[in-house]
């Protein structure tokens, strides 16, 4: 049992336990905080696998972006100290049973399958290699998906603003701003 192994088991335990608490706790704010720890555990596993760039992206985008967004929306939509209502026991038991059966089935399939390791030239997942592949237009380059993703993010940003805008008949501001919006 080397230190490497112990670190992996600690990270896996952190990820799974906080993920499980995140879906079972009845206080929504605590669920968000447990989700945060689960995502940090996954970033730790990426570090453990020596994929530092994807770990950094995970921390910046998920932990720093999405969880903060979720916490903000909890503040906007929940009353303080209000607990989520508990589900019926039958639904819980049935979901747990279905999920456990599916999990066991998947693991069984996975254990029966011997994965074939393909050892060709080793490409280091360094920042340099990632940057070159990301912007390369030759075979195996990712320039086109990169551009499409940038269009998607732009569209999502515009869409968010349009969806979250106040409707005209709900506007309670003064008439000067109304006139500005209509002109």
């Amino acid at each position, binding site marked *: 049992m080397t230190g490497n192994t112990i670190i992996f088991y600690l990270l896996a335990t952190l990820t799974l336990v906080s993920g499980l608490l995140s*879906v079972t706790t009845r206080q929504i704010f605590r669920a968000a905080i447990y989700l945060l720890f689960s995502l940090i555990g996954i970033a730790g596993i990426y570090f453990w696998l020596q994929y530092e760039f994807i770990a950094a992206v995970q921390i910046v985008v998920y932990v720093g972006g999405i969880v903060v967004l979720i916490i903000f929306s909890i503040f906007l939509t929940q009353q303080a100290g209000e607990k989520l209502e508990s589900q019926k026991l039958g639904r819980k038991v049935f979901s747990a049973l279905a999920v456990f059966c599916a999990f066991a089935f998947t693991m069984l399939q996975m254990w029966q399958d011997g994965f074939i390791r393909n050892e060709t030239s080793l490409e280091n997942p360094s920042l340099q290699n990632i940057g070159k592949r990301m912007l390369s237009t030759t075979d195996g380059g990712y320039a086109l998906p990169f551009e499409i993703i940038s269009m998607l993010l732009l569209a*999502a940003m515009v869409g968010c603003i349009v969806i979250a805008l106040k409707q005209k008949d709900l506007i309670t501001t003064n008439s000067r701003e109304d006139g500005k919006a209509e002109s």
Partner: protein
Amino acid sequence: MQPGLYHILFVSTALFFIGVYGFFTRRNLITMLMSIELILNSVNLNFIAFNKFLWPGKLDGLFFSLFIIAIAAAEAAVAIAIIINLYRSHRSIDVGNAEEMKY
């Protein structure tokens, strides 16, 4: 024993089904969104593990994970905009109260 591919696949499968369990049992839109995030993260972990252990000559799994993270960020932003708009009109973000949007 050094943890290998199967250990990471176990973690990602367990995380996926934890997310599915949350999706089944929750009735609040924000907690359902959290379950979706867990599912997407388990998929990312799968891609990275396969890239690391089975195909170390390429970086394709890493790029798939990167694009999934970007799409997940866009999806979370749009979903939260929809949730806030729904809260404004219904004063609740329970999926049961959003049922009337079907008709």
